[in-house]
């Protein structure tokens, strides 16, 4: 079946640097994408989302970029902080789907170095 996948399982960055986490999705019909952060022992926490009619969306210190041509999604975190250390998942779905079920990627472990 189709799936969402991540390019790198781990990413280490220095505190204060910018982080970029990538995601490839394979279902060209997906039109709603979400980034989640998961800290140890907790559930996925919403970070930012984007609909397919946009190619960029900014939040507080985070930016999501969507390239539908190559089916690629990225999460940029500005001025990475120790509290950003977590596993980051991208997820895809059909916005108009009856259930809005999410297909998750396999996750990237972000480690922020002091």
């Amino acid at each position, binding site marked *: 079946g189709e799936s969402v996948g991540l390019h790198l399982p781990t990413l280490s960055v220095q505190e204060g640097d910018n982080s970029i986490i990538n995601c490839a999705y394979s279902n060209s019909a997906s039109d709603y994408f979400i980034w989640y952060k998961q800290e140890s022992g907790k559930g996925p926490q919403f970070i930012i989302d984007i609909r397919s009619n946009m190619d960029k969306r900014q939040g507080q210190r985070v930016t999501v970029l969507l390239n539908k041509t190559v089916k690629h999604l990225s999460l940029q975190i500005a001025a990475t902080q120790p509290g950003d250390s977590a596993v980051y998942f991208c997820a895809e779905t059909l*916005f108009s789907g009856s259930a809005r079920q*999410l297909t*998750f990627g396999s996750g990237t472990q972000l480690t922020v170095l002091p």
Partner: protein
Amino acid sequence: EPEVTQTPSHQVTQMGQEVILRCVPISNHLYFYWYRQILGQKVEFLVSFYNNEISEKSEIFDDQFSVERPDGSNFTLKIRSTKLEDSAMYFCASIPDRGRSSPLHFGNGTRLTVT
């Protein structure tokens, strides 16, 4: 900020036993979900629930699984006869509606350990 709450945080059970995982979705939300995450793996969709019935379910959600909204606040996942491979984190999630961009709000999960 309202949260999805799940109990218990950790459940240990013997193979073949029944377990019920409990969730209290955010109060004005209408769509409810169960997902699971086997240790070190992806979060996987199990089932969605709306208007007191299942909307969609995955292949994982076989006859051993059932969901129920017994009252106006609780949403439960029952596994009738647990297997070793049911050991995982189980996450409940909810959204208010599908008419706008509304990402799933997840609880902190129940860790199920089947021995």
